[in-house]
């Protein structure tokens, strides 16, 4: 089991015009929500490069949240729809990587929906908490360790073989 003091870490990519502003509104309205999300501001959810999401997971995020304007309301017409397409593809890929789909979430949150910021972050923190730590950096270290062990063993075996061969030739 994981450390009981473990807290989920969520990286949130919010678009400047709707979701980031909604998070500001949540603040101005003094709504209270879980402190686990770290918000990174982008001009549009369309800027949320899948590499950012993978980088977040591989740097230790337990979940990634993308927030954009509602369809039809994008400040840049349809950047949010481009993100939706990438999000669908990325989800399949994450599934194949063994990353639970609840760890990546896309939400449309308008500038007026401060309360939705609160509920989405709270929900996501609870979902991810239930899943436990993803700890990709730890897993990478494990895999690397395994590779090193395998390599050392292979090397040792190869040495033994060559020694045995040398011995046989000698005899």
């Amino acid at each position, binding site marked *: 089991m994981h450390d009981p003091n473990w807290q989920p870490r969520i990286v949130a990519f919010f678009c400047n015009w709707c979701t980031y502003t909604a998070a500001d509104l949540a603040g101005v309205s003094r709504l209270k929500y879980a402190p686990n999300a770290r918000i990174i501001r982008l001009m549009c959810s369309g800027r949320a490069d899948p590499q950012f999401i993978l980088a977040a997971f591989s*740097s230790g995020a337990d979940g990634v949240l993308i927030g954009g304007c509602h369809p039809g309301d994008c400040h840049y017409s349809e950047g949010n729809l481009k993100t939706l397409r990438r999000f669908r593809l990325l989800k399949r890929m994450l599934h194949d990587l063994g990353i639970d789909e609840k760890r990546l979430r896309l939400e449309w949150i308008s500038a*007026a929906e401060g309360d939705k910021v609160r509920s989405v972050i709270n929900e996501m923190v609870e979902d991810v908490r239930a899943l436990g730590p993803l700890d990709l950096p730890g897993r990478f270290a494990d895999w690397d360790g395994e590779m090193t062990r395998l390599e050392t063993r292979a090397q040792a075996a190869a040495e033994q073989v060559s020694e045995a061969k040398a011995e046989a030739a000698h005899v």
Partner: protein
Amino acid sequence: MKNNYSNGEVRVGFYVCHCGHNIAGMVDCPAVAYYISRLPGVVVSRDYKYMCSDPGQELIKQDIKEHGLNRVVVASCSPLLHEHTFRHAVEAAGLNPFFFQMVNIREHGSWVHTDRAAATDKAMALSRAAVNRVRFHRPLETTRVPIHPDVLVVGGGIAGIHAALTMANGGKKVFLVERDPSIGGHMAKFDKTFPTLDCAACILTPKMSAVRSHENITLWTYSEVVKVEGYVGNYVVTVKRKPRYVNEELCIGCQECINACIFKEAKFPDEFNVGLSKRKPVYIPFPQAVPQAVVIDPMRCLHFKTGKCKQTCVEACGDRHAIDLNQKEELVQIKVGNIVVATGFKLFDAKRIPQYGYGLYPNVVTSIELERLVTSSGPTGGHVVLNNGRTPQSVAFVLCVGSRDHKTNRWCSRTCCMHSMKLAQLVREHTGADVTVFYLDIRAPGKGCEEFYDKSLKDGIQFVRGRVAEVTDWAVTPEEEGKLVVRVEDTLAGLVRRIPVDMIVLAVGMEPQADSQDVRRLFNMSCGTEGWFLEKHPKMAPVSTFTDGVFIAGCCQGPKDIPDSIAQAGAAAAEAMALIDRGYIEQEPNTAYIVEEDCSGCKSCVPLCPYTAITFDEAKGKASINAALCKGCGTCVAACPSGSIRQHLFEDDEIFSEIEGVLAHA
């Protein structure tokens, strides 16, 4: 370009703001400053009570000079509030303003968390991300885009009229677009205005005719905006001009065509009198209408319905040839730099509360219907009468109809208390009837309004506190016979009462226009959950929207009375004029650009751009971005498979370092 981009040592100054107790109450600011001070490249790390104050900004400037800082990070409120403030401070000290990064630890931190340790942790993580990121910042320059001096005002109610006149008087060319056949809006229907009881028409109609005659105003009634393209300073707007089948320039408003119409009797509900009177298919909206031109309703006109009309109207018009039954809908394109949206409100539909009997009992009327009844130019010539033509002996006003109710609209419509008291006084003046007002709370906060409430009390108007449960004609006592009975819990007396009256007036509240969502999308604005257009900041930017160059005024932003609508219209006009007179806007340099040697010419990016800023250079076999058209969304950047598109201010390495930063253990 101020070239102080240091390729060598990065020297970061970090400042965490207490914001009084706003941040310091939930975040351990000195601890954050200490944590950041130990990060590589951080030369100065301080906490201070109010970073945005003059001494706070001075602190940054001094440190830049004394410690040779070349990067600055401030952890305080939202960048949407103070990014500009700090960029200016950094620039004033001789540094490129884009060597600055802001961390939001108030709106996204202290205000939303309850655990001090966790909030401090989060503040550290966010600050670390910014310090990471700012290392990669490059010097940038804003670009200046010229502003087209013309303005579009959408909506010809009192707010739109006032905004248009203000700007036109200031020498700006204004297009005023109104969807009805006349300007004037709701105010034109009012008899008198509270709390001064001055005549609405006497103060509105001069402004309406001023609009018509103003050399700087192009008035397009019976027209709607259908498309808005472009951006602040350079909007291209398409306006649909509906055919009124009458040439506005030629019509002199003599109304002979109306008399000559084949329909001898007016038989269609008159919109201006909210259906209380009838009009013909050819009509003039109301006597003071601007423009003074008739309009033909194709849904009612025999010519358009059957094609078999003798066209007596055309005959009556004679040599003037003002009537043109072949008029077609027209789409006109205009260029403007700024837009003022003043599209107003609609009234709550009283039928949504069936227990009040609107539509069932003819003597249950809405406040706007009573308004038309008390007006001398109204359908009854100013006589308040019952369905049977008699004068009412007793009238009840039911307040908060559709307002302050979770089942309908949660908000207070702000004007109904005062509006009802005004009508109550007018009814007493006109009929001498007993008047009872059923209220939840009397809200009379405006100038002279509390005094008006006092006057109403002294004038003998009865006030009963309680939400009316039901209106019924089911009499249980002889004196209730033939009357409407108001059933209400009198919450001050503490008993349930039945009060018989002749007439009941429902003070219906205000609602966003039915098509407010479409209008919002048209102008790229936001709406609150209720549907009112959202201002950029509820206090500091009450008439601005999130789209630069689009301003809001009047009731489309929320319920308000006439003085407030006019004040807002003036404010919106001033904001637009400030932009026009400056002559240019500074654009955030967050545009995308192409690193040509990396571009493989795959063209993935070309169709992604909604602004057609990306073109494919066939000769070079590379994509190319027109920075003037790029709005900086970054969608193409995220899509480029070779990483050859990059975005100023949101470079990949900046964001990757930010991700690392927020995840680095505090």
